[in-house]
């Protein structure tokens, strides 16, 4: 009796393990086939699934799936960049096309022999202005792309900010007046030195003031002072209709406050500012404070000041 029970048990065990073995082999084969399918596809989210109840197989599939997912995520990033790139190309061609079309239109008008001298001069002025704007755009974009690929050569030297700021301010003074902007300044007369490329720093100030000119509504406030190991320069202007969500995007390429891109903005000014400053090792950020009398948009640059050397004989 006992032998028969043992025999039955042994047979049952044999059948059981044979079944498990067979099912495991089938599971491996189907997983392999599925993997081949996934490999053959360009883009897919599909992952391997467990077709035989085996713990080790499950763990293996989990690891393989993790690998697949990593590859997929990289693909997503890559595609995202491609799309972004194409979008930028589209933006550029749009930006170039509009002034060019307008220039061509005016040139056509200039061919009219019945044009008065005044009209002719006016048209020519328009054409010149638009061509210059085009040139500016192209050069801005060129600079930006060089900055991004690290080819823009910056020549850091001991730069004095007070003088630079005042210089740029003077250049813009008339434009601010004409635009009806009331400028308030609070610039410390202390001579502060930072390590920066002179031209780049000038460009930073220039772009920021240009931005104010384009977007400022009534009041402008420019400040500069030393704060410990930093020199803080702030440019604030009143704005209308700006939202908090726009603030972090201000430094993005081609971001302009008006989505229709009907103005003269390249949308690259702020981007260049940020890139230049970061390249030189300084920091910049933007903020929007909403008050009852209006909203203030502020750009704040934190320059790393040079150690104040003895006046006259510098260590550098």
């Amino acid at each position, binding site marked *: 009796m006992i032998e028969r029970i043992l025999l039955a048990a042994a047979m049952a065990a044999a059948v059981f393990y044979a079944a498990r073995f067979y099912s495991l082999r089938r599971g491996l084969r189907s997983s392999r086939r599925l993997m081949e399918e996934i490999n053959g596809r360009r883009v*897919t989210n599909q992952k391997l699934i467990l077709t035989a109840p085996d713990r080790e197989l499950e763990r293996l599939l989990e690891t393989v*799936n993790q690998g697949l997912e990593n590859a997929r995520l990289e693909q*997503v990033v890559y595609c995202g960049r491609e799309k972004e790139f194409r979008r930028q190309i589209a933006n550029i061609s749009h930006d170039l096309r509009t002034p060019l079309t307008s220039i061509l239109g005016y040139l056509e008008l200039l061919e009219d022999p019945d044009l008065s001298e005044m009209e002719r001069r006016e048209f020519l002025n328009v054409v010149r202005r638009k061509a210059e704007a085009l040139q500016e755009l192209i050069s801005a974009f060129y600079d930006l792309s060089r900055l991004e690929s690290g080819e823009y050569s910056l020549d850091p030297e001991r730069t004095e900010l007070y003088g630079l700021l005042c210089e740029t301010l003077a250049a813009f003074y008339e434009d601010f007046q004409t635009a009806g902007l009331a400028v308030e300044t609070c610039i410390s007369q202390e001579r502060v030195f930072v390590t920066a490329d002179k031209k780049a720093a000038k460009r930073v100030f220039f772009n920021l003031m240009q931005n104010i000119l384009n977007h400022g509504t009534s009041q402008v406030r420019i400040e500069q002072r030393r704060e410990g190991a930093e020199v803080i320069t702030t440019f604030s202007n009143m704005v209308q209709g700006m939202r908090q969500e726009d603030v972090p995007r201000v430094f993005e390429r081609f971001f302009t406050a008006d989505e229709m891109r009907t103005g003269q903005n390249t949308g690259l000014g702020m981007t260049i500012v940020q890139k230049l400053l970061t390249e030189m090792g300084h920091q910049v950020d933007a903020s929007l404070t909403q008050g009852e009398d209006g909203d203030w948009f502020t750009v704040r640059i934190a320059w790393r000041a040079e150690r104040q050397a003895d006046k006259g004989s510098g260590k550098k």
Partner: protein
Amino acid sequence: MEEKIAVTRQLCKRYGQFTALAPTDFELKKGQIMGLVGRNGAGKTTLLKLLTGLTDPTGGTMALFSGETPSELSRARKRMGIIVEAPAFYPNLTAAQNLEYYRLQKGIPERSRIDYVLTEAGIESTGKKKYKDFSLGMKQRLGIALALLSDPDILILDEPLNGLDPMGIVEMRSLLQRLNRQRDLTILISSHILSELSAIATNYSFIEQGRMVEQISAEALHEKCRRYVEVKVDQPQKAAALLERELKCDQYEVLPGGVLHIYACLEQPEKIAAALVGGQIALSVIQSKGADLEQYFVDLVGGERRA
């Protein structure tokens, strides 16, 4: 190279004498968010059931991911995430338990996937609540979670926005858009409310009484529903000429009853008014209008019923 995810040729379904779906040619391409629009009972669910294999067709053929044989279709369906009719789950299990059941059934090895889809769908904090105690919105979200569980390449959703509150609709829409962008997920959504879909759909299919009435891209649809300025004048011909001469505008339509639809100067209808009045044309109505999508659909369907 755009892959055709689903193609049907003369696919039809009859229940005895009743034709639920007339022979239909339908196409769904990769990366689209297709809105399947139709009134209740128009045949949307029938089409979805045919695509997902819940019902067998009475005629016609269907290809999913370029596979037509039953075994290929079966393998293709493993790449689909679906909700058809209401979501169905076991009432006495919690959300996580329900998903665990299906995770095992589908053979998905990663246990962490469950938490991931619960968070994506927005119901990560139901804890021990049993499915039978869920609100309608939560049930819908669990349905979406299940659809996402297998990391599909295509989602087929039958009226997924049903029962969601406005906040939920916004979340669901942004979720679907994000998945479409980031994971290349093709989405087929059916709804009888066109405005729900209009924010995210890239293509539309209109279905009425079992017949596919129109398949159109979102841009084309918006083009057809363009905004215009409507004016009612006493001398339409003179008005038209005036528009051409004064405003250099040639995009307009003359309709009976002295009505003109002008597709320019949309932001400044007063210019149109000034020009017309200046030309001594009596102007009785001037309005900015746009055929909204619902109106388009109603017209389309109404026309179909008359036909």
